């Protein structure tokens, strides 16, 4: 029995490795100060899908929605062994909140009709943990959240352990299912160097367009399109073309996408800067630990 999995990944600013001021004065994220990376939990989702493929056979497709440069996370997934990647890139989808995003992803997932869909538990930029569950709702897939370990996949049944914070829960579900995967589920494999050296040259159409427009002035759309088609065909010949979809390709209604499809209103954004004012060392013994606990209770860090 082999399975087709789809993994949803997102390119995010690396909030774990901040190199400058992370917030602009207007309260939005200063992306220039933050390296763009694949959302960490998504790499655990990918690993879960790859492990199933390695044990049972089948394939792993990776999808992402974003601007042309978001294809980098697809390449990252391809280096690690994903079979194919799809970039959903459409200006009409810009500014999507979780509702609109999950709608777009749902349209794409339905087109691929997989046995299993994997999402990271949450992203490190938005930190909503909503897209996975919303996507399950819209695709009518059984939802298993907080997957801590995939226990077994047998025939059409998946058994997973959920991390409930206060304990674990073992659940079994009939395929197809959608799982949101926690970072404790596995340690993602490193990229294969050979795949990386080859596939670093893979490009999607939106990236080709962007590059050609940057490199030259084009008199009209037709000549640009001809050049894009030529480059895409060349890449495809060497297995280096990353699939890309517009909203029309996946049958998404523009009114439900982007800012128009996003009811979320940001009330206020606060830039909270934690600074270490002072440091204190505690002895590595019972007395030291008691002193630390006492202080943490006193300043209400713990109760």
């Amino acid at each position: 029995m082999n399975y087709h999995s789809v993994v949803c990944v997102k390119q995010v600013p690396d909030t774990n490795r901040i190199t400058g001021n992370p917030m602009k004065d207007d309260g939005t994220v200063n992306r220039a100060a933050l390296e763009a990376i694949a959302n960490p939990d998504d790499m655990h989702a990918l690993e879960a899908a790859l492990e199933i493929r390695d044990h049972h056979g089948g394939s792993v497709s990776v999808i992402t929605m974003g601007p042309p440069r978001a294809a980098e996370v697809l390449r990252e997934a391809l280096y690690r062994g994903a079979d194919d990647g799809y970039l959903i890139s459409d200006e009409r989808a810009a500014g999507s909140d979780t509702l609109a995003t999950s709608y777009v992803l749902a349209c794409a997932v339905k087109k691929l009709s997989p046995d299993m869909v994997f999402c990271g538990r949450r992203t490190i930029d938005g930190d909503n943990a909503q897209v996975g569950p919303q996507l399950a709702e819209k695709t009518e897939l059984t939802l298993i959240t907080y997957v801590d370990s995939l226990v077994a996949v047998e025939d059409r049944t998946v058994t997973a352990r959920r991390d409930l914070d206060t304990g674990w829960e073992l659940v079994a579900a009939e395929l197809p299912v959608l799982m949101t995967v926690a970072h404790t589920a596995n340690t993602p494999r490193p990229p294969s160097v050979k795949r990386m050296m080859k596939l670093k040259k893979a490009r999607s159409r939106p990236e080709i367009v962007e590059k050609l427009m940057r490199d030259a002035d084009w008199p009209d759309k037709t000549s640009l399109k001809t050049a894009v088609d030529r480059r895409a065909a060349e890449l495809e010949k060497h297995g280096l073309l990353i699939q890309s979809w517009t909203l029309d390709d996946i049958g998404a209604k523009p009114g439900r996408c982007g800012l128009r499809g996003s009811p979320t209103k940001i009330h206020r954004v606060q830039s909270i800067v934690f600074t270490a004012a002072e440091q204190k060392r505690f002895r590595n013994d019972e007395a030291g630990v008691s002193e630390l606990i006492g202080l943490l209770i006193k300043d209400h860090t713990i109760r």
Partner: protein
Amino acid sequence: MGNYFTDNDDILFLFEHADLPSASVVMENGFHSSKTIDFAPENAADAMDNYFRILKMLGELAADVIAPTAEATDRIGNRLNPDGSVTYAPGIADALDRLGRADLMGFTLPYEYGGLNCPQLLYVMAIDIVSRADASLAVFFGLQGIADTIERFASKTLKERYLPDLASGRTTAAMVLTEPDAGSDLQSIRLRAYQSENKEWFVHGVKRFITNGCGDVLLVLARSEPGTMDGRGLSLFVVDRSDKVKVRRLDDKLGIHGSPTCELFFDHAPAKLVGKRRRGLTPYVTNLLNKTRVAIAAQSLGIGEAAYRAAREFAHTRGGFGDTIEKIPAVRELLVDMSVDLQAARALTYLAGLHLDYDSAIFRRAVPVERDAAGQKKIAAMLSAMGKYYASEMSVRVANKALAVLGGSGYMRDYPVERHVRDSRITTIYEGTTQIQIVTAYRPVLAGVAKSVIGELTDRDWMGDEAELVDNLREGVGLLDRAADYINGRRDQSYSDLHSRRIVDMACVLIVGALFCRYAEFNDAKMTVAKRWLDTKLPELHLSCDAICSGNRSVLDRFDVLAGRVSHGD
């Protein structure tokens, strides 16, 4: 979330400035492979981009996955099972699996055998990074010279049989040289190799201190010519792991607990001859040792780096005497000496790596290198020995000083520094002890090879601050000349041997000095390091030169008095 490549300014600097592009050019030989191998680089820039990606990925793996397991690996070690198999520590087993799946176990092997065809110089950087995470793992990751030796000297049949599995990490290898009565002195190896009536080879006897002797592919040096006593009676064999090869015991040792050190008994085990008979020691094992020595030098760099960072961070945060202890001049000097020593060892080791690439290129006849083969071989052999000597001794010094900075805390197992001290100590012993490296390096130094390397690095006009540095360096070269002339003129072998370490030390200081002069052009930090190096080393060079030219033979002539008698007890 860390990265042992991108957080290391020194490795990043050398990635840019240690002639890696020229290594890529000789390894890729015109970049023809890109037409047939879909991942091969198209040009030097493409290769450099690949190299950067490889180290970045490895740096992340080292920091996030490997380093957190090092402490447990040190505690758990390996287990010899009743069936004779050996179970690695979980961290080692997992890391080997990941390194194999990431295609990193055939780092320098050619494409046709499943390798990445990367330069030795890049491989040296990779070992440096991995060893900082776990010195034990480096003995697995860093022994790819074994596969290189099969690639260079074995038949096509053997290559096709062994190399793809080694490159993918499906199998691991061991170099099986040492015997109970033959350590540094490989000429006296006794393990018997013989042929049956139908010309099949077998080996019989005992080997000990074999790193990863439980591996699948054993490269064995054995005496194939009965009645011979020296290296010319030795041949090299590949032996498969089987029930004819028994791991008799695992050694319980001071450090690198994740590395299984085995005593092996070959019970008339089937063997396959590598290359030609009688060539086992020279040139095959000699060639292998050039590579593995540089690998151990790189391992030493990683250990030194880990120890230095632990000390630097501790001194920066530890309070004492009303401030942090890094404000204390004595602590500052410890840290500065460690940092400069580490950078010196890295510069020298990477230069050795680069010259191994030139040597390989000549061997593969790939050469756009304008060098004669014999001259290049001498330079590569000298630099390998020097790099191993200097870097391994550096790691012992730096780990020891790191422990000094941490004081009592450093002596405890709560901090990793005591492990670095224990792990560092082996680097001056295996793949040839420090004394053996000195023996290997000092004849070429006396013959002027070191001077030619220095000349190659510095023979041009220098401007500004660098000119002053180079003047100091040339003063030092004059001292080496004087010392070498004195020794050469004296024609006293034992006196010459007595001062071999001083001679090699002087050469190491000057080659590093020449590299530092070049690096000083690129940034202020390297300029400051270069000045510090020459300021502190020039007086030492005078001292060494004086000692050598003193003609004092008391260590040789009055040994019994100075060392005292051996007490035989009652």
